[in-house]
């Protein structure tokens, strides 16, 4: 029953896996960004807002210039600019990281700056001029199972794999990466070693924001190439949960992103296929949110003792005179 008329590539499982990669990619970018910020000890709850601003500015850039590459750059800059506000407030002004992150989501989010920009630039209801689409040779893309799941994907997916590898190598094999971890674990010790704690926190928060901006642009430039208010519908929050789920490790982010991506893709796949059409669609639509709660519970009960992998200084400002 699972293998339908269109051959194995049309089987429900394969379609769900393919959509897991599609919907997991924005989560992956956003989670990698959040991971970098958190490794520096900065908790940024503004991911949803940064993603939305990245999405709207990326879409604007592609409509204006027609260049997808430029659009990704604009989305990254927009996300980074939002993160800079957070960095200034929590690093320089020592504000509460949780409240500042929430403020960023309210400022930039679905009812804030992203909606304002979308309205002001008249982006709603515009058909996209360009969108990321699969580009590999047709014979590869139609190969059994791996074709639809891995090869029939846009460049954003492959770029995200490169990013995972880069972040993983950066954190474990390079001097700045190791310094970053020192800043996150013990800013006082890092400071004594001569590492510029403030600079590390600023840079990684802003780069994290740029990643979130690109993650948002995955929606407006690839998945649903258009702009509507609140396009990301909670993906930013799922990405924050994903970092915890991945124990602050980039490679586990990859696994987790596709796991949550599958649950985000299921409502669309099932609705298109008419699978379980007797069940209310809201039940499937609530899956990603419910699963996020379930997974967080599993992770926190297993790791409650030692908060597996969480940077020790996460959420606390560093004040040299008061250490």
């Amino acid at each position: 029953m699972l293998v339908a008329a269109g051959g194995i590539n049309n089987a429900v499982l394969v379609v769900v896996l393919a959509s897991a990669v599609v919907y997991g990619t924005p989560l992956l970018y956003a989670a990698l960004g959040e991971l970098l910020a958190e490794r520096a000890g900065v908790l940024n709850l503004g991911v949803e807002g940064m993603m939305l601003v990245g999405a709207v500015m990326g879409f604007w850039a592609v409509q204006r210039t027609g260049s997808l590459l430029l659009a990704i750059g604009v989305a990254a800059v927009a996300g980074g600019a939002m993160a800079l506000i957070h960095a200034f407030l929590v690093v320089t002004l020592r504000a509460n990281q949780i409240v500042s992150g929430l403020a960023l989501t309210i400022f930039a989010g679905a009812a804030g700056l992203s909606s304002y920009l979308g309205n002001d630039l008249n982006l709603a209801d515009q058909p996209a001029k360009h969108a990321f689409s699969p580009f590999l040779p047709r014979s590869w893309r139609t190969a059994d199972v791996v074709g639809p799941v891995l090869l029939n994907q846009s460049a954003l997916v492959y770029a995200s794999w490169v990013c995972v590898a880069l972040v993983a190598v950066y954190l474990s094999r390079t001097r700045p990466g190791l310094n970053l971890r020192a800043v996150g674990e013990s800013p006082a010790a890092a400071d004594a070693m001569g590492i510029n704690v403030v600079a590390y926190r600023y840079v990684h928060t802003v780069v994290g924001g740029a990643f979130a901006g690109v993650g948002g642009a995955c929606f407006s430039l690839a998945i649903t190439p258009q702009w509507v208010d609140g396009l990301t519908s909670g993906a930013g929050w799922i990405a924050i949960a994903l970092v915890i789920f991945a124990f602050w490790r980039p490679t586990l982010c990859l696994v987790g992103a596709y796991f949550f991506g599958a649950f985000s893709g299921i409502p669309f796949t099932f609705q298109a296929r008419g699978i379980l059409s007797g069940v209310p669609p809201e039940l499937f639509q609530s899956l990603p949110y419910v699963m996020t709660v379930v997974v967080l519970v599993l992770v926190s009960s297993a790791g409650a003792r030692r908060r597996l992998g969480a940077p020790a200084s996460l959420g606390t400002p560093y004040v040299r005179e008061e250490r």
Partner: protein
Amino acid sequence: MIRFERRLRQPGWLSVAVPVGSVIVAFGLMTLVLLATGHSPGHTFSRLLDTGFGSKVAINETFVSATPLLFTGLCAAVAFRMQLFNIGGEGQLYAGAILGAAAGIALGNHSGWLSVPAMIVAGAVGGAALALVPAILRAFLSTNEIITSLMLNYVAALVINYLIFDSQSYWRDTSSPTAKVFPQGKNLPEAANWPLAHVGGLYLPFGLLLGVVLAAVIWVLYTRTRFGFEVQVIGDSPRAATYAGMRTRRKILAVMALSGAVAGIGGASQDGDFRHTLDPRGLTAAGYGYAGIVIAALGRYNPFAVCLIAFLLGGLQNAGFALQGVDFPSGLVGVMQGLILFCALGGELLVRYRVRLGSRGAQRAEATA
């Protein structure tokens, strides 16, 4: 070079001057945003003030917008005071609206003396029940309550949509001719409409008065009782609280339930005061819960400050909805709320620290001279 020195004593006048200064700076930044996007700031601000507070009609409308914000603001303030970041006020308000509407429909044939209190209780129960999910997870499994409470907002929004758009539920109107074309909720019976106080040309919704009373109750609870004292100790120093033998888990459950109940009553007030039906579109589009966080943070978790700020931001929101159009894009209100909150957060620094200009060396030289 700029340096920050921790203040040993926080002067009282700063706690008034800093919020006022923050709002002024926020309006300055807003001016920049408006100029950058090609709008006239003077025109925009004067229309905002006029539509929000300019006349009795405007103030009546502002009361309508302020009522749900008062509840969600109190909801956030109650929980945030214990460093318990309940950002599920949005979903808890929906849950309260669902149960409140059920009570209203079921008891509408009786007098208002029965149905109105029943709606309040039902709303409180709905909100508290939803808030207890993250509370239990936080208390017993130490799961991060920020994310779980937020995720439940999305789930609650889907539930309320399901009840009206995708099912033949108790809440849905299935009899009237228009309801066959456009799904909508049952109209609440007359007796389930909450009363409206009429004072000198102003109409005060019952929910608004109830919210102010709740604020007073919360203030007494948090400043005059043992419960409130323990909540504050747990918020400021969880470890000290544990050593002193305070039952942190019970407090988490109690505070979250209280917080959710307040938001839930706000939901019931939406049914009883204003909408007179379970209205998924209107409720989910408004974003009351998120605005509540802004209000609580600006009011520094003080219930009376929350009342005042809910009124001011209510005016802003009311004006934003009323003016929404080509030269007044939606999203402007959210941008302003965010800016005010950023400035207030940055301003906190001035309360806690003294800003010094000049390098440390220079000052030392001064001191020895």
